[in-house]
């Protein structure tokens, strides 16, 4: 009884380990679904080939092992040099399998890369940076970072999101496995991909092309929202930054320091473009490109020295005194 229970527990624990928020086998959008279907075909064919060939190999190894007890053990086996018919058969059959696989692959490839773009599609421009993501919504002028908000796409009235991608520095790759395969962001090159999440929710991913020291902490969060929620989010993001008089001191610290050379906060003198737009920083769930939760304590540590979370991040340690740090932290937390 005890054994059985622990057995069940062990199986449950093992199967738990196959669950992942980033598994390619739990697709949630059209591109990832079509890849998933293709992968099932490819996996079953390769599994079939494996079973046949490995089975024959195993059979040969067992059946034709040298048996010292055999009276003819010292005699050489019959020497067989080859057979053109057999060679032909194991050339032609694999060719047929390859043709079949190729045609199935080409169909998925064209249906994804040459999908027609509906007029309702949302456009977002993604610019990769060392080590964060910049998102522009050209139609509404919204600029944000690291957390991508897009509408859910209803299959009856599809509203896919088209991502136009490039890089400001080194190569990056945008990969949210449950939504689509990855696509690279390359300087001096513009790539396009599309995603259409079928259900609201948070989809995780991360940079998939080595881009420098903090490649590992260049995480992606995609928030798929109902069209109404998305519209509300977009409207809020279009507004200038909150001006909270209680945080005036922090704002002054921010504006006096080098922060403004790299960050933008709409409606203030901060118009830098090297770092993420902070206009609505407090509306995000995470900071440091998804590395840590957006809490006042984390913001304070990050401003003090980004190396606390991301050693090698391009933002320098700001060397603020404790008072200024508190003030800036307080200011940043008001930027809803």
């Amino acid at each position, binding site marked *: 009884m005890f054994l059985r229970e622990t057995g069940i527990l062990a199986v449950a624990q093992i199967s738990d380990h196959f669950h992942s928020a980033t598994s390619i086998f739990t697709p949630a959008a059209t591109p990832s679904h079509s890849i998933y279907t*293709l992968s099932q075909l490819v996996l079953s064919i390769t599994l079939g080939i494996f079973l046949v*060939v490995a089975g024959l190999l195993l059979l040969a190894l067992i059946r*034709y092992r040298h048996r010292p007890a055999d009276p003819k053990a010292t005699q050489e086996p019959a*020497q067989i040099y080859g057979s053109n018919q057999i060679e032909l058969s194991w050339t032609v059959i694999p060719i047929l399998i390859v043709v079949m696989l190729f045609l199935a692959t080409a169909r998925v490839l*064209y249906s994804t890369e040459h999908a027609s773009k509906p007029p309702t599609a949302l456009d977002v421009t993604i610019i990769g940076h060392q080590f964060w993501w910049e998102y522009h919504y050209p139609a509404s002028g919204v600029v944000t970072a690291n957390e991508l908000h897009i509408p859910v796409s209803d299959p009856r009235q599809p509203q896919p999101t088209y991502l136009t991608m490039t890089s400001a520095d080194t*190569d990056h*790759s945008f990969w949210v*496995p449950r939504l689509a*395969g990855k696509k690279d962001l390359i300087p001096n090159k513009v790539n396009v991909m599309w995603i259409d999440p079928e259900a609201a929710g948070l989809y995780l991913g991360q940079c*998939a092309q080595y881009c420098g020291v903090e490649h590992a902490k260049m995480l992606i969060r995609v928030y798929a929202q109902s069209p109404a929620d998305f519209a509300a989010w977009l409207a809020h993001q279009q507004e200038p930054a909150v001006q909270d008089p209680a945080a005036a001191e922090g704002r002054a610290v921010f504006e006096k320091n080098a922060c403004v050379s790299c960050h933008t906060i709409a409606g203030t003198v901060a118009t830098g473009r090297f770092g993420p737009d902070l206009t609505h920083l407090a509306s995000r769930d995470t900071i440091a490109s998804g590395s840590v939760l957006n809490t006042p304590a984390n913001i304070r540590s990050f401003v003090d020295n980004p190396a606390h979370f991301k050693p090698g991040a391009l933002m320098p340690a700001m060397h603020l005194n404790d008072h200024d740090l508190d003030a800036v932290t307080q200011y940043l937390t008001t930027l809803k």
Partner: protein
Amino acid sequence: MATQIPIPQAPTTAILDETLEPAGPGLWLEVLHGWVTTVDHKRLGLMYIGYALLFLVIAGFEALMMRVQLAIPNNTFVSPQTFNRLFTMHGTTMVFFVGMPILFGFGNYLIPLMIGARDMAFPRLNAFSFWISAFGGLLLYFSFLGGDGLYGAGTAPDVGWFAYAPLTAKAFSPGHSTDYWTLSILLSGIGSVGVALNIVATTICMRCPGMKLTRMPLLVWLYFVDACMVLVVVSPLTAAQIMLMLDRYLGSHFFDTQAGGSAVLWMHFFWIFGHPEVYVLVLPAFAFANEIIPVFSRKAIFGYPAMVAATVAIGFISLSVWAHHMFTVGLGAGANTFFTLATMIIAVPTGIKIFNWLATLWGGKIHFTAAMMFAVGFLFQFLIAGLTGIMLSAAPFDWQLGNSYFVVAHFHYVLVGAILFMIFSAFYYWYPKMTGRMLNETLGKWHFWIFLIGFHLTFDFMHIPGLMGMPRRVYTYEADRGWAIWNMIVSSGAIFQAIGTLLFVYNLVWSYFKGPVAGPDPWDAWTLEWATSSPPAVYNFAVVPSVQSRRPLWDLKHPEDPDSNYEM
């Protein structure tokens, strides 16, 4: 089956040479002088192998450090910068300073012996190639001291072994670490081209009487194709390195994206080298299998002409598959379709090879020596590596799998599961020829089983985090993704592999002094290297042999039933 016309003036097929070398070692200085100034293909071969083994241990240690770091999420065993240097050095070392030299080492040692020649075609070029490659390796590791120049020590290259632009541009890679990387690869490339030239010339010009191209041992055939590929594919790599140096020091803008250069151009240059390079590394492994599997199955290789044709086909097709490394770059549906097809087609000649090995085993009397056990491991693991390769060739599937740990698992299945297993096999098989003593078989079998367990723990389970979205080249990962348990298993396997490798190194040293004396032909084999003493004299053969079939020693041992009666 055409019968061969016998050569009247060659009554014997080969001559066993038992001449001993003059005994008595000289002063150590003389010994050293002898090795440093040698142009003997056997000594150079051994030096290649020794230097590759040294780097194998170093780069293996780098892999261990990475696996310690990744065993648990958010680990801080090494810093991000150190981790990035580790994977750059590990990859660069394993490809350029382990894989290439060890294979060239075996080729250098074996090719003249197997074709009945007394040396390579250009012995001095051979020595030059070795020393220039060795210098390249030293330069790569000197970067640990000199990479940052006077600013401080401790900066090895950290741009990854494929060093994508523009990470290598001055703006993103200040200091000299990238320069050391570039120069070391340039030098190793010069060495590789030298060896390749030598192998091509030796194969064409130095074969003993009677050894027509159709009678050449398959090992030599595969090395010949391999050398031709090296000549073709190292050139674009060298060109790209020179362009990169021009970018970094003379203000050109090939890859400097900030001045309008192209990052994609580097990818093309690198992968038109980089993918065929995989085949450059794997063909010698196939070559070993083509010699070892028949001998321990006690049968002639099945389908010799098909094996040669498949090798040549792989050589050509492998030159047209490079952009399958670039399916996510945005080359467009047309290019992706072409490279999907080209990549899938290469499975056909590769499959032919596996089927022919299978047919060679079929009906044989298989002796499971340590060498054969590693070869059997190779067969299964190469089969799996090929099948995961087919998965990756389907471009849309690759959009998910590419640059994930699945890819890392796939190519380690090729490099370790296939190539390294075959290299181990080759050691157990040819060590007696090279040293005159047998490797300890019991230790060899322990080595096999421990390494096999370690290999499968590491590289089987490494596929899983890839399927679950874990990208490669990350110094750490999030705890909530479900990758932790798999990474722990992967890391624990690395320990077994390390123990297995240490056992192997111990065996190499112990057997050199204590191993049983091998004699000229311990495996009852059929090719010419077994027709001379172990180790062979400087001149290889006292009398240049002449052959009438692909297996001259078979003919010698079975004069009533020589191979030449049957060969296709």
